[in-house]
């Protein structure tokens, strides 16, 4: 076994329970603990001790000897990321090992050999920093995965195609219209038109915050594609501000039926399909 590994093996072997308790006390003092801290700490301590005992290279955390430790750290950061703990709290949990580690160094060397104490402290500090850095990186990656997944879900959630009446489909658009959204809406709407044989589609843009030239172009494309399929399209839910913007920008919506509200659009759709709505007089 390498000399520094031997020193650390000695440190970790002496009184593991005391070490873990002191570590957890420090975590609790900084207020960054969680309900699963004790189990996490035990698991990580065991992995760390095993790696040191197996003579893993102290300078290279990405080496084979640290594989088990890395997987424990990965699981830890992933579960913390899923629970919504902050990156700071997660790395603080790891950084808190320093204190019990330094305490045991001090105890075991008794202050008589300053050179050896300094070396051990330095190695310990480096190692803990590396562990914390690895945890923070993994944590960040897990968070990004969560964000990406949510983005994808949001994209799919926000564009449902609903059937309003026999032969009338509607898409309530919510959120900003960009190329990928338009593409998705266009595809799902056109597919539904073929499936249901609907002759009329209503695109409701009440939930679209702003309409600029690009958004208008996307809308025009969708309308043209619907027309090419042999169906008609009505755009509804144009708020007064948006109507003003459209005119000020000089966007040409000629040839497209536009209505102020979805109710108006539905009324027109019924009329086109030849339905008459009447109230049943009691």
């Amino acid at each position, binding site marked *: 076994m390498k000399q520094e590994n031997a020193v650390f093996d000695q440190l970790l072997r002496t009184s593991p329970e005391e070490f873990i308790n002191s570590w957890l006390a420090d975590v609790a003092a900084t207020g960054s603990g969680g309900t699963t801290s004790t189990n996490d700490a035990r698991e990580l301590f065991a992995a760390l001790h095993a790696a040191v005992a197996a003579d893993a290279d102290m300078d290279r955390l990405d080496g084979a000897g640290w594989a088990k430790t890395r997987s424990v750290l990965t699981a830890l950061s992933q579960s913390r990321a899923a629970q919504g703990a902050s990156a700071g709290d997660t790395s603080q949990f790891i950084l808190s090992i320093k204190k019990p580690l330094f305490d045991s160094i001090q105890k075991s060397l008794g202050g008589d050999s300053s050179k050896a104490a300094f070396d051990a402290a330095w190695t310990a500090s480096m190692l803990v920093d590396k562990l914390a850095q690895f945890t923070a990186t993994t944590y960040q990656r897990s968070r990004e995965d969560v964000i990406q997944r949510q983005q994808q879900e949001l994209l799919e959630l926000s564009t449902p195609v609903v059937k309003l009446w026999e032969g009338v489909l509607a898409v309530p658009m919510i959120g900003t219209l960009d190329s990928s959204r338009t593409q998705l809406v266009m595809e799902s709407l056109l597919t539904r038109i073929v499936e249901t044989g609907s002759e009329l589609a209503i695109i409701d843009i009440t939930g679209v915050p702003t309409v600029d030239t690009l958004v208008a172009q996307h809308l025009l*494309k969708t309308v*043209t*594609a619907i027309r090419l*399929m042999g169906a008609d399209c009505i755009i509804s839910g144009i708020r007064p501000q948006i109507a003003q913007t459209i005119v000020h920008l000089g966007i040409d919506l000629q040839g497209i039926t536009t209505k102020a509200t979805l109710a108006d659009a539905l009324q027109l759709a019924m009329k086109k399909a030849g339905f008459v709505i009447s109230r049943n007089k009691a």
Partner: protein
Amino acid sequence: MERIPILKMGRVLLVTIQVDLQDQVALALQDDLSAQIEKTGASGVLIDISALEIVDSFVGRMLASISGIASVLDATTVVVGMQPAVAITLVELGLSLEGVRTALNVERGMAMLAADDRNQIDD
């Protein structure tokens, strides 16, 4: 070279495109169709492209020009059964086929042409 058959149904010429359109085939169709409109005095042309999976700008332009030629010969053209992917492709190519009438399927296209024909006679 294969040719696309043109069927006469009353006053309507029915063209069903079942294969991927090669440029030569498309040009031949344009020739045959204009000759047939002249010969039969048809008032409507129905082009069914429901089996067409792939289009390029040439085919898109050809659809537009067939419609133009037919309208000069006083026949209305209806393109029916366009697939979503084809519609998206044409839009992305910037071909909106202005002036070409469209319908969801052959049945509705026929109804559309029949209604047109009645209106014309009434006038």
